[in-house]
């Protein structure tokens, strides 16, 4: 961190003398205090690493100068004030952030869209952000929770199944998944016979299972947690013979369910978890290590990608103009073009400045769909012989 700051300061001092470059501020608004304060330092370091890479290349006729602000993750008023400061006082060209969905929605609505500033969130996953009225200024490198529902619907229908029952853990995560799955499953001609919530931490789930079984469906979608009610539901279903085919969302993947239930699960479970077999992830871990921080912590790769997208969009538009950044993010994120991995930003900038096209792959296999959010890559697995066997990537 110190090295990056020093380097930034040094280049900032030397550069204007050499090229008379302008210095452009970019905001990084993350919850440096609050519930996710343990992972945000690495997220910020990852974002700064991407800007640093661009500065070091010397190809842009400007210096990108990251400015940090605290979103607190939970306090919308504080986050809005911090974002106001970034935009009015620091005059940032774009913002990496925010992190948690609640404060992100607040900033998009109150500050970013009214002022016309691009935000690229690395970690806000709420489905509500998909439909937010953002004039195209909001992007995210994390997939919406709704995406997993679609992937699961594809997985289920591809197996020729047209009727399921759903049980979900009674919170925003479970409900969001249940809703998005139901929507895309019905779009594909499927029928959800029953949707029932379950509470976590109960001792007994036989009543829930009995009701689900009575729906007549043969397959059960379990959108819960592996160490909580989800496992109780599966155990009770197997014991009473109510279901012997299950589909798990990401919260259900964990060795503990195999340890607890054992061989009975073999061949009965298909599930999805976020993941890709992308070479960019390893490349990112290496440059992160070189820069002196741990890139494997949650959302650090997404943060690098968010900053890289802003950098490439500046290069593609040839200016740090806020609207120009907005208009170029999707073109650098998606096909067609030369594929760019972490650590190759200089090459990407060079191609763009020569008028070519790039397709930024980055650390998380970035592909922005719909209103500018990560398509999301999921690993589909089956439980076979007491372990999770990868079937495919979607």
């Amino acid at each position, binding site marked *: 961190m110190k090295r990056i700051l020093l380097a930034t300061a040094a280049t900032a001092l030397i550069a204007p003398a050499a090229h008379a470059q302008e210095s452009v501020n970019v905001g990084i608004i993350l919850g440096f205090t609050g519930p996710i304060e343990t992972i945000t330092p690495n997220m910020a370091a990852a974002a700064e690493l991407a800007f640093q890479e661009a500065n070091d290349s010397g190809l842009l006729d400007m210096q990108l100068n990251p400015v940090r602000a605290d979103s607190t993750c939970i306090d919308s008023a504080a986050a809005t004030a911090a974002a106001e400061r970034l935009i009015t006082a620091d005059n940032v060209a774009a913002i990496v952030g925010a992190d948690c969905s609640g404060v992100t929605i607040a900033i998009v609505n109150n500050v970013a869209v009214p002022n016309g500033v691009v935000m690229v969130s690395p970690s806000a996953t709420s489905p509500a952000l998909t439909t937010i009225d953002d004039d195209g200024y909001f992007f995210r490198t994390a997939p919406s929770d709704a995406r997993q529902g679609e992937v699961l619907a594809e997985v289920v229908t591809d197996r020729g199944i047209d009727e399921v029952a759903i049980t979900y853990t009674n919170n925003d995560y479970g409900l969001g998944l249940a809703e998005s799955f139901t929507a895309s499953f019905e779009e594909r001609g499927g029928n959800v016979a029953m949707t029932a919530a379950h509470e976590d931490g109960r001792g007994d789930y*036989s009543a829930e299972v009995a009701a689900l079984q*009575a729906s*007549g469906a043969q397959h059960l979608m379990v959108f819960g947690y592996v160490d909580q009610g989800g496992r109780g539901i599966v155990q009770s279903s197997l014991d009473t013979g109510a279901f012997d085919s299950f589909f798990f969302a990401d919260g259900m993947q964990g060795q503990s369910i195999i340890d607890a239930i054992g061989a009975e699960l073999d061949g009965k479970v298909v599930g999805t978890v976020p993941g890709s077999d992308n070479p960019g992830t390893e490349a990112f871990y290496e440059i992160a290590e070189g820069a002196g921080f741990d890139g494997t912590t949650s959302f650090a790769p997404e943060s690098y990608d968010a900053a890289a997208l802003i950098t490439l969009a500046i290069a593609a538009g040839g200016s740090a103009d806020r609207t120009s950044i907005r208009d170029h993010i999707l073109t650098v994120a998606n096909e067609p073009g030369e594929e760019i991995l972490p650590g190759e930003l200089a090459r990407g900038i060079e191609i763009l400045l020569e008028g070519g096209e790039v397709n930024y792959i980055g650390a998380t296999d970035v592909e922005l769909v719909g209103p500018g959010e990560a398509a999301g890559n999921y690993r589909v697995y089956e439980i076979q012989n007491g372990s999770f066997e990868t079937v495919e990537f979607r």
Partner: protein
Amino acid sequence: MTDFLNAFVLLANFVIVPATAYGAQLALGALGVTLIYSVLRFANFAHGDTMAFGTAVAILFIWLLQAWGVSIAPLPTALLALPIGILGACALALGTDRLVYRFYRRQRSAPVVFVMVSVGVMFIYNALTRFLIGVDDRRIDDGERFLFTVAQFRAATGLEQGLALRTSQVITVVVMVIVTAAVFWFLQKTRTGKSMRAYSDNEDLALLSGINPDRVVRITWLLAAALATIAGVLYGLDKSFRPFTYFQILLPIFAAAIVGGIGQPFGAIAGGFIIAFAETAFTYAYRGFLGYVLPEGWVPPGLVQLLSTDYKFAVSFIILVIVLLVRPTGIFRGRVL
């Protein structure tokens, strides 16, 4: 005919068998609550956590037995560890009485003070249990898990619907019957039991007749702790052990005790089964059942579910409120709370 058999098996598998096991666990818990209430005259909120503590001690001993390689397969090791769990809970209950409740008894505090004290004790037990064994989910159902499984039942009978009977469910009901019979025999036939009933009926008269109140109190705590541990271990065996669920089960246990008539041992048993069957029967979706029973074309398209399973706990409270309004003494004429 086959249709009716299928309908019955379906109902048995999803309503009758689970509700019977659950009812037996509630009944044992409610029996302990009712004993404390009738002798010591307060509603003991710490009962659920006494269950958790006793079970935690039993689980520690189960692990020790497993490490030694001792087992009574096909029965679960938990049965072997049960007496140790009971000893642990008894020591805890007597210790608490000595340190806490005796003070208030000497002060002749009002019952509501005792209730509040028991809430405090509940939180301490809560912490003690977590300290002892942690908050994680533990499974203790080793040995043979099933008497017969759904697949075996289908193969044997050729019916479309299957029925599973778990060892833990059978053990629960058998143990519950034995324990209840023993408690009733103790209360009705032994000298100590009679002195407890006398003390419960009229404290001053009992003292005049030469009954030692300290002894009665001690025995009541021992009985309640033993009942709590048995109920707790059976519940843990049938479901799984997690300290938090014992805190939750306290509410249906109280409902069972009050519905049956608090202070009435027989009422506690009846209340346990009433609450358990009501919770399960009101939240069950009857479409599959009606599909077998009704003629073709009469089967309703919906799930025929009275209440969503989300409202499972609400059912016991609706019954509780109705009973308190209509017959405040409970079904078997207990004391009015």
